[in-house]
């Protein structure tokens, strides 16, 4: 072809564009790894103690690795994602619960299959305990050991001195909530996770904490997800009835010494989806979520018909009662994908006291300095 002025001109343009691009490419090739960042700049880590205050455990989205811990210090100032701030890595995902034991925080991270142990002095990592089958909740047996429930297979027994899994109790079930009564650990077992509701065998397993053997079990309604113990040493079990509303939800009272169900409350409306059964420090009032927050004295003969705190436009997801003052902490998980909010209410009037911004799916709370006997 014949070269004309026009072509040469265009060619030189194309050439120069290319070189500009090439230079940009080389220059822009910074060695900074491409990783998730936050739009708001987090303040640099301040070293202080985390022994007091309140932790919000933000579950994070399954397989997104975005669980976090929000810290509310005693002066009500808030720090987001304190785990990442002090350890330079994300917590993982589906942070289910947190417990404070002997100056350490134990954070159970379900899908990441680990318990992150942090020092409450500065929130730096002590160790990561691994080898679980989807850890859920933890209960201390004595100063040497703790039980951890798993979504699959077994209950793990942790040695609290070496911070490793010492052994496990085979359950072939998804186990959830734990309550200790004398030398026995009562553990709610939902059934095999992959089974439909109809096949799941729901019961409360009774484990002898001396021998770590399952010695007995009590049958309950489908999906016994939460347990609390009242002042008369009765265990209250909340059964959702199944993820697919297989049967009506029930609230079951167990006499742990006789190992029998001594009372069953059925939820009146069939569409009820109760969760997060809690009890106050005096152990005389039950709380649970069923869209709104419900309050129920342990002496009550019926399930309350209207909520103590209505949900309104919120998606109430997590609930706990502050042991020292009985305040109600409720989280709003919103749409599960944006950052949630936590509300603090007065337990007598139900009035809103404070609001705290939280992370993704705030689900549970930890009050490290306040004794909480379940």
């Amino acid at each position, binding site marked *: *072809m014949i*070269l004309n002025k026009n*072509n040469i001109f*265009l*060619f030189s343009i*194309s050439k120069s*564009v*290319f070189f500009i*691009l*090439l230079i*940009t*490419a080389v220059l*822009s*090739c910074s*060695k900074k*790894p*491409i*990783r*998730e*960042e*936050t*739009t*708001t700049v987090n303040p640099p880590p301040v070293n202080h103690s985390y022994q007091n205050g309140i932790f919000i455990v933000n579950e994070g989205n399954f*397989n*997104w*690795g*975005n669980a976090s811990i929000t810290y509310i210090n005693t002066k009500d100032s808030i720090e987001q994602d304190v785990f990442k701030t002090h350890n*330079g*890595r*994300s*917590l*993982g*995902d589906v942070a289910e619960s947190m417990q404070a034991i002997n100056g350490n925080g134990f954070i159970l991270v379900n899908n*990441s*299959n*680990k318990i992150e142990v942090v020092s409450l002095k500065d929130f730096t990592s002590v160790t*990561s305990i*691994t*080898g679980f089958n989807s850890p859920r909740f933890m209960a201390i047996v004595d100063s040497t050991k703790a039980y951890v429930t798993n979504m699959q297979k077994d209950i793990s027994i942790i040695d609290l001195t070496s911070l490793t899994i010492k052994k496990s109790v085979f359950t072939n079930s998804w186990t959830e909530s734990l309550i200790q009564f004398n030398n026995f650990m009562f553990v709610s077992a939902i059934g095999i996770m*992959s089974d439909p509701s109809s096949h799941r065998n729901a019961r409360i397993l009774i484990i002898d904490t001396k021998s770590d053997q399952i010695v007995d079990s009590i049958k309950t309604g489908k999906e016994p997800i939460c347990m609390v113990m009242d002042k008369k040493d009765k265990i209250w079990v909340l059964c*959702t009835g199944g*993820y*697919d*509303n297989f049967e009506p939800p029930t609230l079951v009272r167990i006499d742990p010494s006789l190992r029998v169900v001594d009372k069953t409350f059925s939820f009146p409306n069939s569409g009820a*989806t109760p*969760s997060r059964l809690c009890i106050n420090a005096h152990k005389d009032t039950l709380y649970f979520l*069923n*869209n709104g927050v419900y309050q129920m004295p342990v002496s009550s003969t019926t399930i309350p018909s209207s909520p103590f705190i209505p949900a309104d*436009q*919120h*998606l*109430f997801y997590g609930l706990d009662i502050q042991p020292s003052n009985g305040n109600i902490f409720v989280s709003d*998980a*919103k*749409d*599960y*994908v*944006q*950052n949630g909010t936590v509300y603090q209410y007065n337990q007598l009037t139900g009035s809103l006291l404070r609001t705290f911004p939280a992370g*993704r799916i705030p689900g549970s709370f930890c009050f490290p300095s306040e004794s909480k006997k379940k």
Partner: protein
Amino acid sequence: MARNATHTRVGFLLFLIFQSCILFSQNLKDTVHLSQVEVTGSFTLRNQGFKKVLIDSTILVQYLSADLSTILSQYSTVFVKSYGNGSLATPSFRGTSANHTQVEWNGISINSPMLGQTDLAQVPVSQFESLEILYGAATVAKTSGAFGGIINLVSNPDWNNRVDLMLAQTFASFNSYTTNASLALGNRMIQSITKFNYSNALNNFPYNNDQTKAREKLVNGVYVLDGITQEAFFRLSKKDVLTTRIWYSDNSHQIPPITTNISNVHKEEIKDRVLRSMIEWRRSGEKYFFTVRSSLVDQFMRYTLQEQSWNHHSYSWANRVRLVYSGIKNFIIKPGLDFNSDWVISDSYNGVKTRKTIGAFSEFNYDLKKILQFSLVLRQDMIDGKFLPFIPALGIEYKPFRNINLTVSTNLCRNYRFPTLNDLYFEPYGNPDLKPETDYAVEGDMVYNFGKKDDGFFVETTLTSYYSKIINQILWLPTASGSYKPINISEVHARGLEAGLNLAWTIYRFRLSFNNSWNYCRSTNENPLFPGDSTMGKQLIYTPVNTFNSTLAISGFGFYVSSVFSYISERYTSPDNSTYMPGYYLSNIILGKNFHLKKFMLSLQLNLNNLFDLDYQSIVNRPMPGRNYALTLKFNFRK
């Protein structure tokens, strides 16, 4: 057992077709001149006001061992969301979701009727010859519901071909091996094409694990792709062509755990076994084309997590009749009728779920003195006995100058997408009361080109702007019980610009091409779910605002080199835009040499990917490979 039986049956069937083709072709002798292979690359097609882009074999031939996600992310404005090498990769056009993209194989939808989308990583480039990309309203003449676009994998016979044999072997980083073979045989009356691909990758690339702060190798990332296509084209008479195609693929890929997962044994795997088959009769006269086609797609998928597995099996039977009639002066009428049935048997559904779709439509083209072209598409779909609202689309194309190749066009349409079977029936969360999603879209295009595509100098500039409003978009939202449920709640507004500059120049046996595309897209949530919803007006997650691709290719004297550069701007990872993945640039280089010896050709090609060894993630906590290589050795015989 069942699997082996299927294998054997399919193998036998292919063998029969293949045998008959060879025997048949030996009886028909004819002299044909070898056609010159058209060198074009990627360019925009004039299409009566609707946007359509073609990526042809000259590009695809350099990506024999790659999958569809690589091509789309490097050569189109379609954004590909990739979970990692060989892992799930889904397309998104113009800020819409993967559900709004239909992937087709020669016009047959290969989207899963359950999910309403296709995993691009499961589609090897070697199984088709060119890619047709239809944007926005251009899809209405093909199907309803593809708000974003259609990606059509095309393969056509070369009637001049006698024998064309290709054998290739690729050796790539991270213990990845790909074998490709194809054989095209035939004459002017009959053509048979057989293509085979096999990939096996350990995919254990090293990456920096932020969790352990150590350099580790990816675990549980193995993938195996296995596929064979048999196509046969019969010229029954001067007017009639019969086409049969079968594409069987048997793929499996493990899903690596995210970096924050600490597990003793992570076992997660997807197995896909798909048989796609079709038969088509086409009659072409002086003033008409007439096609009748029937196709069957049989998809089996098994998802395994630890010790549990879920099986999903679907059958899609699609039938269509099409007519193109140009008997009236300046008018072309293109009516069509579709009848499709889907059956799904899934561990996630309660019983067999079915869907019957009837679609009737017609396209009317009117050409006014080659200056103005109008195109009107009217479509009426009926799904499971219920009429979907009427779907219209209008395109206008204006060519103001006789001697200047400048085209200005616009189109507008209203489109509907019916919920996927998962949206409706997924146990126990599916919602059978869902309404179809609605899209109102408008688009304006400008295309200017100068010169000839495959000779001398060629320049093409394109500029497209679009605005799309999607209402009643289905969103899986949490319910008070902690589970999810899909509801028609979301409203999305997507608007943007697509600009392209393509240059091609042939000078003294050197061929130079320079293709650039830039895409700007703001796709935002416009319906608050509750008071104080902080996602209102925010960019959708994993939707980059800016993407830019640039490819410079030079070839001559049997050598060829291409430099492929892509930029993806930041993508938000939370709908309230509080977290994001920073933008990044990637550079890839392809170097090759073809050695010709009479009818033989030997090619040696080196692909250098992620040239600057960028440590990046595309999806949070899913590592991507650093610099890596692929060496391909290819042998061709053509008569």
